[in-house]
């Protein structure tokens, strides 16, 4: 059968000089339909709207009970006013990690610094909306058994059903996390879901991109860091055992390099800002399972620091900012008495959550402060309440 070529005159006629041509509109590029759901943007918008509404409601209603929201509000303020505390806070904890807050930046100009917690909620909502699509992909893959006797990887398209299930699951999880006042891990969860989705995609380019999401998960929360580290170890073992440097090896290499690079950026920034690349790791503590409630802090401040400048060290300083401001005190991320303003000659009283207080992981440990700062030797425990400890700090050793 002959191929249906047109007559040769077609070419010689060609499309002649511009002056003989009618006006040519833009040529429609070839369309290559991939297997995506036709209403992907609509689902993104729906997901974003629902998550944003839910998380914002918690930020408004529950107020200061969401530690992450309050801390990020303070950090955004410091970051945008170019206060060095904000930069320190970005890299000095494994509980408060950069990728929780970075997606909120586009929303900050819209809502203003006073409502930065709302921007933070919207940033998380973006991540969750993207993760919804990935979770729907994973569910679609589970729903459809792999095709037998074929070497070709296949990505079944996500359906409305899988999208609804994914959305519902993530909404329930968001509700749970926000209800407990800990929204930070949601960012890591979203990144992990996206990493898993890309890891299982049929195209090599997508699989190679999974490393970026693993890296993002590691920069979102300590739970993501542990998950990503475990995955990296498995990948390295697989690469070490591979006999030849084939396609799969190359994909694993790109994944590893991407994830390690993101982790490397965190270490680099930490070295630059904190003078210690592993500052966050060294000061890491897991929150107590059943901590004392955050209460009576105002009372504690009033009774324990009548004539002194209260200072706090660590991210929890953002949580108690109103009390500190009221008492004319200071909060610092990386505590050092020299950072206090020279005009304030009052004695310093360092307020630290006692063991068992859920804010412990957000504060610097005094032990560590003592190790790092030699001029903290004048530190003296003066009083202790149920959830708090108060130390007198000598500024002139």
């Amino acid at each position, binding site marked *: 059968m*002959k*191929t249906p070529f047109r007559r040769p005159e077609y070419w*010689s006629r*060609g499309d002649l000089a511009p002056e003989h041509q009618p006006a040519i509109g833009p*040529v429609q590029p070839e369309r*290559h339909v991939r297997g995506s759901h036709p209403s992907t943007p609509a689902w993104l918008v729906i997901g974003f709207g629902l998550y944003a509404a839910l998380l914002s409601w918690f930020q408004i209603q529950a107020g200061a009970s969401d530690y992450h929201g309050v801390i990020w509000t303070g950090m955004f303020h410091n970051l945008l006013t170019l206060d060095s505390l904000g930069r320190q806070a970005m890299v000095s904890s494994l509980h408060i990690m950069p990728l929780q807050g970075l997606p909120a930046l586009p929303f900050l100009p819209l809502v203003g610094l006073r409502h930065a917690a709302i921007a933070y909620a919207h940033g998380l909502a973006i991540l969750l909306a993207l993760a919804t699509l990935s979770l729907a992909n994973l569910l679609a893959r589970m729903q459809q058994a792999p095709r037998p006797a074929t070497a070709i990887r296949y990505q079944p398209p996500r359906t409305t059903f899988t999208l609804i299930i994914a959305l519902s699951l993530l909404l329930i999880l968001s509700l749970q996390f926000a209800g407990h006042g800990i929204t930070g891990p949601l960012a890591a969860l979203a990144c992990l879901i996206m990493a898993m989705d890309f890891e299982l995609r049929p195209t090599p380019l997508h699989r190679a991109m999974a490393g970026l999401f693993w890296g993002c998960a590691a920069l979102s929360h300590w739970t993501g860091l542990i998950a990503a580290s475990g995955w990296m170890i498995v990948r390295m073992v697989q690469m070490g055992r591979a006999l030849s440097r084939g396609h799969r090896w*190359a994909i694993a290499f790109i994944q590893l390099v991407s994830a390690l690079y993101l982790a490397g950026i965190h270490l680099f920034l930490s070295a630059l800002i904190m003078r210690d690349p592993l500052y966050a790791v060294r000061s890491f503590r897991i929150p107590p399972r059943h901590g004392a409630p955050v209460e009576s802090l105002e009372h504690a401040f009033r009774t324990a620091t009548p004539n002194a400048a209260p200072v706090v060290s660590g991210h929890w300083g953002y949580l108690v900012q109103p009390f500190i401001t009221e008492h004319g005190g200071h909060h610092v991320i990386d505590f050092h008495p020299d950072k206090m303003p020279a005009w304030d000659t009052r004695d310093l009283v360092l307020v630290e959550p006692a063991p068992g207080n859920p804010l412990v992981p957000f504060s610097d440990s005094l032990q560590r402060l003592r190790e790092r700062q030699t001029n903290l030797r004048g530190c003296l425990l003066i009083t202790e309440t149920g959830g708090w400890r108060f130390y007198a700090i000598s500024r002139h050793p």
Partner: protein
Amino acid sequence: MTPPPVSPAVSRPLPQPNAHEVMTRGQRNIAIFGLLVALLLLWQFPRQLLVAVNVAVIVCYLLFAGYKLILQMVSVRARHTDQAPGTMDRNILPRYTVLVPLYHEASAAPGLVAHLKTMEYPMDRLRILLLVEADDDDTRTALDRLVLEPPFEVITVPVSMLRTKPKACNIGLDAADGDLLVIYDAEDRPEPDQLLKAAWKFQTSPGSVVCLQSALNFYNTDRNLLTRWFTIEYSGWFDQCLPGLFHLDAPIPLGGTSNHFRLAPLQALGGWDPYNVTEDCDLGIRLYICGYRTAMLDSTTWEEATFRPGPWIRQRSRWIKGYIQTYLVHLRQHGRLLRTMGPVRTLHFHFLFGATFFCLLVNPVYWLMTLLWLTTTPAWLNLLFPAWLMVPALLSFLAGNAAFVLSSMLACLNRQTDRLVPVALLMPLYWILMSIGAWKGAIQLVTRPFYWEKTPHEAKSAWRKPS
């Protein structure tokens, strides 16, 4: 500098606008005025001016990195395959003219001729014009030894002061007939079914598609580190950028060789600009302005990568010189660009030409500043980078560079040259070479604007497609 005449034998009028003048009087006046204003501002407000320039450069970096990323994402989605038709009646195939400009290519000629004889296209519908300079006795002798028969023909390019490839191509264009035309270089090894694929693609494409660009890649990839880097760069450009440009209906800078044209529109456009040392890029823009389109052809032409740093830098300097030439030429009619291409596609033009050479020229300055900042942190650097600028600057440094490296690794994966993936990590060293080439090209644009830096080829006759 007075431009040399093209050739007494060429009567073809120059395409408009062209690179006969590097800068028009208007452009020169604007440049001088801008320089004077900058000097005045530097005298009055030195710090503010330097910070403003710094901000502009960082914004440019960020936009360019973002543009490249978007282009690559679009390219991945726009991937397609072209197939040559299985059986066809040879009598209805279009007549094809193949132009091969040769200059000091005596060693490459036998391999080229042998390869072109293997092309899967009816020889009676093919004309292969070997364009040899009149004073290039070595190449002529080598061709004589081969005892060429039709479809091969040797066309003599008259000697003139101007020795550029587009000049030779224009002479070939005068001699060409038939329906379609393609250009190959001496060291090119196109895939044997490329002409068939191109004919088929032209037949099935809209009439406004008058040019097809094949992908270019290298058959001597594993020669040394430089050829590996070069391969990665080409894989990124031809496989992960140009398809995206076509998909976005943006102007495509042609790739120098393996450009397939419908003959009549090319002749009507006036062929190539003989004064432009990247005549291919210029032609791509001119085609677009006239309402024509360039599409990508899913076929690869295998070339020889320059494997010594000296010739590589010379080749790169010619390319960057040509990019600047093309940019300046089309800036003269910026209003026309905006009218015919629209603001978005004009932005493509600025990114593809202006931002490309600008970033390459500015890169060394910023690398040096980064190095100083990390080692000694001089006070004047802190003045240049106030705290509010540090975040975008760091983002540009850490994310922008990483994005380019990652896209290089993905390009290797896409081309299935997996062994090159780790080499892509060293691409920043390759960028240093690129910047050296860019500076050489920029300086040469002032001193020898029409000089064609000839790239020497080893061009082994024994060639096989890389695995």
